[in-house]
């Protein structure tokens, strides 16, 4: 056989194997990411920029809200609010360019880590054929967030067990489970294992958040007694949102950015989102993380 042909064939073989690492689904080399928040807007808030980056690169992102958010307002509630928030979520998904934003009908403020909800989550992760699953840590500030963390942890491993929720076929491989950022210290502080530069998609992230009008301009400012500070007019509101939602980069995050992007670029990143690798589920090597987060490559 011709030497070049051998090189070509072995190259193809290596490429094929690399793709195998990339996704549950061999034929379809797109990555499948599901971000599971407690309320419609949580996923956007903690992973909107990263989601938009994945979407731009052709990967499939789904946001899932485990509650319908029907308690998140001072003058509205129940089904009326849930309906509004579902609509806001659809608009946010459009702004971010992601495939889908699903809102489950569990009541806001009343989420418990029951078997029923665990099974809902197992089905969602399986049906999305997920390579990456993100959720809050069980140490976050809101009980719904904490129980979302517990529920997703409990789904890790069980997603591969055929006898569990047998109405939905199991995944062939346990996905990587990641936690969304929070600032709580106990029992352990959040650890920014993976930090994504979202400078390229920061505007989309803000547009996505802007879609959650009932939250960004009504409910959240009300809880902080800052309703008077909310500007009128869409331009001014976007500016205000940008100012209040840009976040800051901790020294641990800066170190992680330098690890993933190199000293120079890592030192300059302005806007970032951070993720901690959960001990349950797949434990990826550095190379596997780069395959699962192709935006971490230095040339992107």
């Amino acid at each position, binding site marked *: 056989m011709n030497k070049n042909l051998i090189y070509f064939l072995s190259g193809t073989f290596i490429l094929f194997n690399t793709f195998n690492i990339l996704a549950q689904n061999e034929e379809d080399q797109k990555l499948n990411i599901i971000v599971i928040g407690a309320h419609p807007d949580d996923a956007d808030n903690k992973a909107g920029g990263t989601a938009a980056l994945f979407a731009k690169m052709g990967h499939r992102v789904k946001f899932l809200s485990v509650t319908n958010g029907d308690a998140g307002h001072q003058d509205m509630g129940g089904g009326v609010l849930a309906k509004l928030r579902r609509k806001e979520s659809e608009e946010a998904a459009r702004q971010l360019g992601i495939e889908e934003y699903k809102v489950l009908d569990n009541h806001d403020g009343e989420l418990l880590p029951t078997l029923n909800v665990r099974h809902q989550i197992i089905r969602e992760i399986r049906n999305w054929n997920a390579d990456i699953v993100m959720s809050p840590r069980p140490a976050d500030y809101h009980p719904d967030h904490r129980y979302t963390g517990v529920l997703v942890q409990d789904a890790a491993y*069980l997603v591969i067990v055929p*006898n569990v929720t047998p109405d939905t076929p199991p995944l062939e491989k346990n996905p990587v489970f990641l936690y969304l950022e929070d600032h709580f210290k106990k029992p352990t502080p959040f650890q920014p294992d993976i930090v994504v530069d979202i400078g390229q998609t920061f505007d989309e992230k803000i547009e996505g958040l802007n879609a959650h009008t009932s939250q960004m301009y009504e409910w959240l400012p009300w809880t902080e007694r800052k309703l008077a500070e909310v500007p009128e007019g869409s331009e001014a509101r976007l500016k205000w949102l940008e100012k209040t939602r840009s976040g800051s980069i901790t020294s641990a995050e800066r170190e992680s950015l330098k690890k993933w992007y190199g000293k120079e670029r890592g030192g300059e990143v302005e806007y970032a989102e951070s993720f901690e690798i959960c001990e349950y589920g797949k434990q990826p090597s550095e190379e596997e993380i780069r395959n699962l987060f192709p935006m971490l490559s230095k040339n992107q």
Partner: protein
Amino acid sequence: MKYLFLLAVILSFQFSVNGQNQEDEPLRIIVIGAHPDDADIRAGGTAALFADMGHKVKFLALTNGDAGHTSMGGGVLAKRRREEAKRSAEILGIEEYEVLDNHDGELIPSLHVRHQVIRRIRDWNADIVITHRPNDYHPDHRNTGIVVQDAAYLVIVPNITPDTPPLEKNPLFLYLEDNFQKPNSFSKDIAVVIDEVIDTKVRAMAAHESQMFEWLPWTRGVKKSEIPEERDERLAWLKKNEIERRFPTEKTFDREGIKAIQKWYPSTDPETVKYVEFFEISEFGKQPTEEEVLKLFPMLNKKE
């Protein structure tokens, strides 16, 4: 006469340190796992050593394991696994292997299950209770850890599950080893060298045919054709794949492990030790002194 009485009181205090029972009576150990095979995997060697010395060991599985297979499930699988557990108990020489009928993959730390556990610990009159940490990999393991932690202390309260008389003293509660780091890593408080009984342990694990040769290899992508058919080859394969995977010789004896072996086997060179089961002392339940640990684990500190 007075002095004799005093002496008797002092002596009986000393005896009572040893266990719920009198000193000459055997120790009573209960190992509580989530599934039929968990206790065997993490404490089978220690159980066999206790049994050899005439102490009473019971294994308890909180779920019936009815989800742990690719092509079987439900009551049929639960029945098969109960049989496997019974055979494993015979091989280890322990008194009993009880399998509760809670569904696999659905264990919730409910009051109902907590009461089941309190009754079992009391009925066994346990000196030592061993279980998973609440941060192990499987939700059933985590919830087993929570339920047993919740039983610690309550086992002595007469108004709790009053259908079963309370224990007079809180037992020693221990955790089985795992590799998880958050919120804290497993602490190797007690080391039990199981070299003497490793083959017994492997044979006991092999009794869980449905798990060791069918379900667990499947979850790791091992092909059926890679698993030998012949009995001795199967045991060798199991030892290599399940024991050495979980207890790799280089990794088992990290600094902490060596320190624990040296502490409990001061006259043994850790280099000569191959297989160890480590246990962490739970903060709930009895907090033993070093001397009390030696009484509760009479296989420790044995001169080689």
